[in-house]
């Protein structure tokens, strides 16, 4: 029996509207929609399925208990077995309107399905979503920028590489004999005589090494363009040759980003350097 009221119908109190549907927020509602046939308030004989902690219960409401709100809803625990539970629903709701019986069974099916899915999902990986906090993100970003500036990465890396070169981790790959001689010098006692002796030897060797050095550069130049102004001491002579080579490499260059160093020249041009007779003083510079 569906009851009507002259004022706002009681059943509309749980109504919540969306664009296409009207939903009923009542917990005992069978279908979830708000209409006369599926409202627990409007119907005096009603039944629902609800689940608590993984077990399903059948709730029933009859006219006889309409006066006793506390005892209004009668609760029956359904078996865990799906088919048995369906039979139990049928038993309890025998002689009840077809609509309610049908909807109860549908609801029960849906509930069991989602319970199964919950159990399956808990076995899989559970991902916890951690929200980002905007203030903290901003702070971290700012600190990172500042740390980057403070780090001076390129300088640090270069310094480290030079350190490793000094400590001979690279062995004999790079022929900087000047360097080796420097170390030998430091190891010996620094007396002027021995120094001058060493210098004379070094002079000859340096000429040799100069030539070696330049040739090695040739192959490297093909990799990098713009090896401007390789600054070792006493290389004015060498620089001239280098300029010529640089011109050649310019033509082979492939437009890569330039290395650290002064601005690159757009057009090749010859720089004329004059050699000076200042070798001894430049020697000490290197030492």
């Amino acid at each position, binding site marked *: 029996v569906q009851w009507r009221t002259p004022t706002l119908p009681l059943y509309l109190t749980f109504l919540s509207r969306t664009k296409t549907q009207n939903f009923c927020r009542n917990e005992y509602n069978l279908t979830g929609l708000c209409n006369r046939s599926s409202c627990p308030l409007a119907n005096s004989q009603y039944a629902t399925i609800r689940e608590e902690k993984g077990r399903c219960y059948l709730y029933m409401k009859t006219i006889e208990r309409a006066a006793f709100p506390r005892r209004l809803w009668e609760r029956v625990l359904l078996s865990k077995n799906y088919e048995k539970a369906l039979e139990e629903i049928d038993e309890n709701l025998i002689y009840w309107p077809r609509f309610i019986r049908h909807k109860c069974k549908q609801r029960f099916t849906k509930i069991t399905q989602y319970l199964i899915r919950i159990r399956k999902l808990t076995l899989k990986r559970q991902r916890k979503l951690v929200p980002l906090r905007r203030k903290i993100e901003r702070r971290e970003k700012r600190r990172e920028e500042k740390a980057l500036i403070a780090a001076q990465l390129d300088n640090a*890396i270069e310094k480290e590489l030079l350190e490793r070169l000094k400590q001979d981790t690279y062995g004999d*790959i790079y022929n900087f004999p000047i360097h080796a001689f420097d170390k030998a010098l430091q190891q010996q006692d620094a007396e002027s005589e021995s120094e001058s002796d060493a210098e004379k030897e070094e002079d000859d060797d340096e000429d040799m090494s100069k030539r070696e050095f330049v040739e090695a550069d040739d192959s490297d130049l093909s990799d990098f363009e713009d090896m401007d102004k390789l600054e070792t001491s006493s290389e004015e002579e060498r620089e001239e040759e280098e300029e010529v080579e640089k011109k050649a490499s310019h033509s082979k260059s492939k437009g890569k980003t330039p290395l650290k160093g002064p601005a690159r020249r757009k057009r090749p041009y010859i720089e004329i350097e004059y050699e000076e007779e200042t070798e001894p003083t430049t020697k000490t510079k290197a030492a």
Partner: protein
Amino acid sequence: APPKAVPKTIENQRVYDETTVDPNDEEVAFDEATDEFAPYFNRQTVPKILITTSDRPRGRTVRFCEQLSTVIPNSHVYYRRGLALKRIIPQCIARDFTDLIVINEDRKIPNGLVLSHLPEGPTAHFRMSSVRLRKEIKRKGKNVPEVILNNFTTRLGHSVGRMFASLFPHDPQFIGRQVATFHNQRDYIFFRFHRYIFKSEKKVGIQELGPRFTLKLRSLQKGTFDSKFGEYEWIHKRREMDTSRRKFHL
């Protein structure tokens, strides 16, 4: 006029951390000889890395993974496809992988890195930021790069530094002239990958190739990846650890 004072920087004013490693400390040396990286540093094991992502990686992450695998020699990229990490790990151990890297992504950009040393090694979880991919500079060849680890001073920093070092094979090929740098500054670890050339004995030129990113350590766990039951050696706790601007942990 008074002489110019040394300017105060955050590095100067850094709160002294009692776990800073003294180079001559024997206890530390002993620890390091017997911890999980000892077989690597004794050259008994060759690193073999597995790189993977979280579920459904997007374009940037995939490309980043590929580039990362060119940087780290002997590394393989595998797609996740929804597999649980706990099941991947035993399989990895069975196939002789030494390290596992998981790159986590959020909204199509990679933002987290889990680095796990496999045979029961420590697992480090980082937050990753400022990821820049490689843009058409020549790719790395087959050469094994060198490794530079800068500024890892405390005990924690040391263990993290050793973790990074154990990713790369022990014998770098100097002919390749490539160097991978992990530089720690104020608890941010900057990763760069360069090619260098010595122009003279006092000058070196470097050219950056390879991706770059920055990491910030979030947690260090003793065993392999296990977020629920693992034993954490260090977790970053924001409330306690971010109070002072001059206090750093790495």
